[in-house]
């Protein structure tokens, strides 16, 4: 299945840094996010977009992860040549990640 099936997401921007939240619809899926949506995987998914490091923060009380990606916005929102200078569309791209269901899950 896709990450989109179990989680929703929103992108925010500050300077040249983008953050993407990944929030489980149901708390039972939070362990899947923890295990499979890693910083390394997010960095690999955004090859060619994110030049800096990707740091993951965990928020178990709301079953969410927050990814902070540096050097991700073409030099910064106010000077980027990109069509989507804010990187607002990145959240949708991340939801395309493949997720292995847990055994007994549906």
């Amino acid at each position, binding site marked *: 299945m896709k990450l*989109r099936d179990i989680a*929703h*997401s*929103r992108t*925010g*921007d*500050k*300077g*040249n*840094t983008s*953050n993407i*939240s990944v*929030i489980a*619809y149901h708390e039972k899926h939070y362990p899947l996010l923890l295990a499979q949506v890693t910083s390394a995987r997010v960095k690999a*998914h*955004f*090859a*060619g*977009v994110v030049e800096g490091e990707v740091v993951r*923060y965990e*928020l178990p*009380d*709301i079953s*969410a992860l*927050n990814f*902070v990606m540096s050097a991700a916005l073409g*030099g*910064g*929102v*106010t*000077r980027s*040549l*990109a*069509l*989507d200078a804010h990187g607002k*569309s*990145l959240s*949708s*791209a991340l939801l395309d990640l493949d997720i292995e269901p847990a055994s007994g899950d549906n």
Partner: protein
Amino acid sequence: MMRTIRIGSGAGYSGDRIEPALELAEKGDLQYLVFECLGERTVALAQQARMKDPDGGYDPLLEERMRAVLPVCAAKGIKIVTNMGAANPEAAARKTAEIARSLGLSSLKIAAVIGDDVLDACKDGDLPIMEFDGTIKQLGNRLLSANAYLGAEPMAQALGEGADIVITGRASDPALFLAPMIHAFGWAMDDWNLLGQGTVAGHLLECAGQITGGYFADPGYKDVAGLARLGFPIGEVGEDGALVITKVAGSGGAVTAQTCKEQLLYEVHDPRRYLQPDVVADFSQVKVEEIAPDRVRISGGRGTQRTDTLKVSVGYVDSFIGEGQISYAGPGALARGRLALEIVRERLKLTGVAASELRFELIGVESLHGAEVSSHAAEPYEVRVRVAGRTESLREAIRIGNEVETLYTNGPAAGGGAWKSARDVVAVASVLLPRDLAKPQIRFVGA
């Protein structure tokens, strides 16, 4: 009984819809209406406007917004807090007084908070820039503005001195909401946990429709009804920091645990350390709970002691950007689009256009996330060629768009809808200023 105030969020950015704010004022049972209208770079652009006109430099929609909401706010005693002052809060206050008089509302007290302009202090200190190697002085005559993110204290003080309308320039967005809480409840400026929870409230409310179902809908996954008449949010805040997010009954959109969680993390980095002028807020233990339709309880925001510095937004002339676009459709559109990009790439070299950075892309194929992320997508029916480049002069920037436009008669078959632009780029960087070098002041203007 615990005291509670209701704060409405009437705008999430400078160009936002106006009638949801009027709906909030009329039907929201509010004591406060906040308008957050000042983007990262807006204050630098406003500073340029003020240089051309000493009475200008405030939000271009100030008059329309104030005319829309002042009669009902005055009738109901709803106090307004806004950063629509941009680069000139005093002129914005004078304009608002003029509008109030013209509406027959001559008893309104209007306060401008000034002192966010810290250009001189930044120049004296030659502070280092956070985003790249260099200092304020090295920006030379490209430097346009330096504005500190002020905290809630001067706004709360203005409310305490009887202001009906408080107009600021650069201030932290959550602080616009924190100020009414500090004023109404007398929160101490070192009660870090209360200030942290109040910051959670302000952060959730500051983007207006983004917590009531705007920027959220994804048909089939996250459906939202009534986005054309989206209601803007209301924060019900108790004196102990208890918070419920809601909206006007019958308005479009929805307030759910999901919309609140998305907005909680919006533009947040380390959730344990959300740096604000008044507090270092901690969002990491926030809990979100649906208690009724369109009513979500938010608890668990905390805080620790504020830092000794204020973030300052520095506006400077960065460069120029030239851009051109043209479309291709039907069989072979993708191949013709790629050919067009190759031609423009070669032309820019042949004709010696001096660009420090160039982007060649196909809108509809790869422009948003690059060729790697987009590589498995199906071939589209139509594509739009886009070439953008950074230059040191407007003249060079214009040449980039021209090389796309000339594809009409010189490029692949059947290109249509060419468009070009060239513009200067005012960019924003940040420095940290010792807190005591910013000296906020309050100026009252009678209507």
